[in-house]
């Protein structure tokens, strides 16, 4: 399977806990994006990686959210001290490059529920 994969597909946690969401982009894609989709809304940009570095993290809502991509491939979105308002579907997308026009390929998402 050459698509973007995300794990877990579903995550239920309690308020205040720490969670990690993983994204495996398409091999060779240098650009990786995280989006968050709340109920009834479209995907909302969180952070963009070009290679290993976070080129734009302006969409992260606060300092409880952090993402890494240490080897320029797999990325992990980390959420500390989760709140009920963090409940959403977290989508990962990759593209050949963030420096050229083109589509982004989305994974199926991780549905996070904070109780």
């Amino acid at each position, binding site marked *: 399977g050459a698509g*973007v994969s995300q794990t877990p597909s579903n995550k239920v946690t309690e308020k205040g806990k720490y969670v990690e969401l993983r994204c495996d982009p398409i091999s060779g894609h240098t*650009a990786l*994006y995280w*989006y968050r989709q709340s109920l*009834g*809304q*479209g*995907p*909302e*940009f969180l952070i*963009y990686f*070009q290679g290993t570095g976070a*080129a*734009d993290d302006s*969409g992260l809502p606060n300092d409880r959210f952090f993402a890494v991509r240490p080897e320029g491939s797999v990325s992990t979105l980390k959420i500390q001290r989760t709140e009920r308002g963090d409940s959403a579907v977290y*989508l990962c*997308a990759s*593209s050949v490059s*963030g*420096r*050229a*026009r*083109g*589509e*982004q*390929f*989305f*994974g*199926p*998402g991780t549905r996070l529920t904070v109780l």
Partner: protein
Amino acid sequence: DQQVKQNSPSLSVQEGRISILNCDYTNSMFDYFLWYKKYPAEGPTFLISISSIKDKNEDGRFTVFLNKSAKHLSLHIVPSQPGDSAVYFCAASAGLNTGNQFYFGTGTSLTVIP
């Protein structure tokens, strides 16, 4: 502040007829636009795109029209098929120096009635 708007949350169309989905944007820096299709429990799937240097792009049954002066784009599907039933998202980006991040509308749920 919603920079990309889809004002119709839902649309029903008879099979074989034309479906027209609309999208408006506010940011004049947007220069690349896309439509994505989403089925439940799946990620959005790319459908068609258009650059701001064009006013029309066609791919099979799908045509996207861009009216820059009105900051409006539309997706035409003709003829509509039951398999087209999904949520359609309009997206826009504002230049490569922003990393090509997409701004999405809230989506329009299309139902094609057999």
